[in-house]
């Protein structure tokens, strides 16, 4: 019997494909939820929900913002107890203005809804992590 006509093998292949597709979807979901996409409709709620929060202010045209993005993702994975979010400054100018964001990228650290620290520019992970650890009392 040829491989194409083997129903058992076909079923196995179908099952494997389903499994792989589910894994892919789960990974995508995890990625989506790792960092909250913030705007005026959910920003305040996000700060209320997270005792310690880190918000990355960015814009599409900002190349250093794209350099920094994977560093924020990495930290979000390693510090699940912290709320990580990103906010497009061009599309949410009133929120960026509220926190005096003048240059991009700017990362603001919040504790109990209040900004307590910030970092400007594409910096290495360590620079952000040292602030995060101090906020968490580590």
């Amino acid at each position, binding site marked *: 019997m040829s491989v194409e006509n083997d129903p058992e093998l076909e079923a196995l292949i179908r099952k494997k494909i389903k499994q792989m597709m589910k894994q892919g979807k789960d990974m995508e979901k995890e990625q989506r939820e790792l960092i909250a996409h913030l705007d005026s409709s959910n920003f305040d709620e996000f700060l209320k929900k997270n005792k310690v929060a880190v918000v990355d202010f960015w814009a599409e*045209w*900002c*190349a250093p913002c794209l350099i920094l993005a994977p560093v924020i993702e990495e930290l979000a994975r390693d510090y699940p107890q912290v709320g990580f979010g990103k906010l497009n400054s061009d599309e949410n100018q009133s929120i960026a203005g509220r926190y005096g964001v003048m240059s991009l990228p700017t990362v603001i650290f919040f504790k109990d809804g209040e900004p307590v620290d910030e970092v400007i520019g594409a910096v290495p992970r360590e620079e952000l992590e040292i602030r995060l650890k101090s906020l968490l009392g580590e």
Partner: protein
Amino acid sequence: MKALLLGVDGLSYSSFMKCNPRFLLTLFSSTFRGVVVNRRPQHPASSWMSVLEMKEVPLSGFTTISVKPSLVQETGSIPINLPISNPTYGEISLKYGELTLQEEINKVTEGILSSLDDGPVIAGVSGLDVLLHRGGDKCQAYSAVDTMLRKLVNAVDEFILFSPFGEPKSGNEEDHEDYGIYLGTVQRPAEHDTVKLPEIGYLFLKLIKG
């Protein structure tokens, strides 16, 4: 004037911090820069044609090229390894995805360096994108691209380096990050705006024709 328009498919700012490509980082801090926006799905052929025709070209795969692309025609440029057809289009024409990244880099570098005295050059490197789609070693690949760029940029007077889209997001060849890179000696009129693919072709045209 020795001028080069070089596209490296899949090159992305998102790996600059991880892979630390020294020469690219030097360019990043010393040349004009921008973010190329090209939303998914993206195919190398239609993305490149948008640059070469200086207008948005709808998503399509590799085709047979019977007429010189507008930018090549209007600038009198020498095309090298452009991924608009398979095999690629130009003086150096390679079967897409067949060579290793290093083999492609060697051929393209040699081709560019030997053509620069004859006119402007428009060249492409696809191997990084192909390698990343297949799950190859990213930072090793960035290092190879970085070395190539050092050689090429030092050999020209003016250049535009771009990627028509970012890194692959999966094995699907039309699935990449929406953001590519733009680094070059050519200043863009609106720096606080994203770079569109046709704009890259237009900027090179302006560089050559004045």
